[in-house]
């Protein structure tokens, strides 16, 4: 056995961590910085995946596209379209508290799944799109995986650096001000709805990017790949566990959650089938429980959000200060 084949699985795992890292940073912009509850991460992921698939795959009969465009065009297209979709949704929902956004985004994700399932001319419906190219996909398996890991890691790094720069800039402080006290920020003359919309679109675009990265890894996409549970929920756990508002934290969350999720499957698959089934669903139960435990014992996450010039203790979400409580102006 060559060393390179032994590395295959960790490499595969790491690629997924990079993809989920992208999703987590996208959600972190929305939730961590702007307090927006997007429960339809899977929908934006799917938009990105399908966009890139249509743009880059070779021509095929009976569906849109097959434009055979290069990989980077697919990525950019995925981001653009995901952002574009976020715009009207944000316009409608961001006026209200985030509960409304949550239910609407659930609907959006479901709607996108239905479109992907039903519109033959667009997505080849249930059969999905295959033969999607992967950059350097012609190399031997192990090498191709390594190269692709390099690509995803690089893209994640770029996204991280750009978002991080924004976060520590005045923009980031403004976003946090809006999140923590909307009226105060408004009184200071900040255009609250516009800024929120900005964060929502930016985050969604990153989710689209992650979708594109996934589709070039899997090389095929069918509507069933848009599993709301798997994508949306895991990303939420990653963000909350790692520490919302802290990009490094959510990346750590992505690593921890995905490693647990993926490797635990190896264990459950070893069980006899009657227990394997139960163990499978038990695994989801544990993920749900993990969320509850984090919210209970460390709501700020493993790596809490860092705020400058302010002692950390006061900023714990868990110790909601009395001022915001009294005004009733809670994270919106």
């Amino acid at each position, binding site marked *: 056995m060559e060393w390179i084949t032994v590395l295959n699985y960790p490499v595969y795992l790491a690629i997924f961590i990079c993809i989920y890292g992208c999703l987590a940073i996208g959600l972190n912009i929305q939730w961590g910085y702007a*307090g927006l*509850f997007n*429960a339809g991460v899977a929908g934006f992921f799917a938009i990105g995946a399908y966009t890139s698939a249509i743009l880059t795959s070779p021509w095929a009969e009976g569906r849109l596209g097959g434009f055979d465009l290069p990989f980077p065009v697919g990525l950019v297209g995925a981001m653009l379209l995901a952002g574009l979709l976020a715009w009207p949704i944000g316009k*409608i*929902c961001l*006026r*209200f*508290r*985030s*509960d*409304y956004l*949550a*239910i*609407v985004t*659930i*609907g*959006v994700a*479901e*709607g996108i799944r*239905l479109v992907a*399932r*039903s519109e033959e001319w667009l997505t080849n419906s249930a059969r999905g799109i295959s033969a999607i190219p992967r950059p350097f996909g012609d190399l031997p398996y192990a090498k191709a995986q390594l190269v692709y890991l390099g690509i995803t890691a690089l893209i994640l790094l770029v996204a991280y650096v750009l978002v991080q720069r924004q976060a520590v800039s005045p923009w980031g402080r403004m976003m946090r001000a809006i999140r923590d006290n909307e009226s105060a920020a408004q009184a200071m003359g900040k255009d609250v709805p516009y800024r929120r919309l900005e964060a929502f679109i930016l985050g969604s675009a990153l989710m689209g990017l992650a979708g594109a990265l996934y589709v070039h890894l899997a090389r095929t996409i069918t509507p069933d790949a848009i599993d709301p*549970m798997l994508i949306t*929920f895991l990303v*939420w756990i990653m963000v*909350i566990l790692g520490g919302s508002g802290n990009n490094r934290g959510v990346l750590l969350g992505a690593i921890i959650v995905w490693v647990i999720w993926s490797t635990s499957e190896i264990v459950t698959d070893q069980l006899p089938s009657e227990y394997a*089934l*139960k163990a499978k*669903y*038990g*695994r*989801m*139960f544990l*993920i*749900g*429980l993990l*969320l*509850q435990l984090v*919210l*209970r014992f460390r*709501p700020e996450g493993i790596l809490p959000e860092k705020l400058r010039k302010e002692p950390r203790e006061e900023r714990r*979400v*868990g110790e*909601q200060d009395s001022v915001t*409580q009294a005004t009733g102006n*809670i*994270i919106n």
Partner: protein
Amino acid sequence: MLSFVNFFLLPGIVQGSIYALGAIGITLVFAIMRYGHFAHGDLATFGAFIALAFTTMLGVSPYIALPLAVLATGVFAIGIDRLFYAHLRTMPKIITTIASFGVALMLRSFVQVVWGVNTTSYARGITRPENWFGIRVKSHELVTLLVAIALVVALHLFLTRNKWGKAMRAMSDNPDLALLSGVDNNKVIALTWIVAGGLCAASGFFLGLNTELKSLMGWNILLPTFAAAILGGVGRIEGAIVGGLIVGIAEELSVLVIPGEYKVMSAFGILLLVLLFRPTGLFRGKVL
């Protein structure tokens, strides 16, 4: 005309009353505790399967299992609140909403572990509809409607005549004021959960009775149930009922104009329209 009533209007009303039962719970939780409770659908699944457990274990008819399941789910809902939501009360409300997603997942996997993922039903066999002057109603559809009406009337009496019902309404209108007037916060919350959980179990039960029991059944009605609550106006019981019926009927009628695949999207369409043009809902509820 008759076929319109039989195949579109009547199923719509039955489905709508199922949504309405769930929507009442959502609207109560929304109004009194001020967060969207996203585990509501899966709580309905749980209630439906509890009823199944009663029918199989005790060997009783599903209709006897119903009150037991309603009570059990109500108590269970209090337990969920104590375990997972109570300690989040001082935090931003949206955190509780997130927690409710986790609870939804846990409830669903619990059902999947215990009862498996296959479709089952309360009773073997089929019920053919009875013919009333050309209108065809199945007995369990009739029961669904009657019990839903009875539950709603009972709830209405409770909220308007009973001391605790009034306290719940006071909490919903203005929690601070209610607190100052000596309303016991914790008791009202527990009461709300009993009512919301019980109604939720009833909606899950009737969904299972009219169709089949499956582990994702509740999650699939979450969106229409929320749409119904928001359409009616958050905090308005009568709104939730009307909203539920409108969503239910609209869903069934939608196949006349849109392809069947997109049927489930009609509730979503209604939700968007309400949010765009009348966020307070038909009955001028709260907007959070």
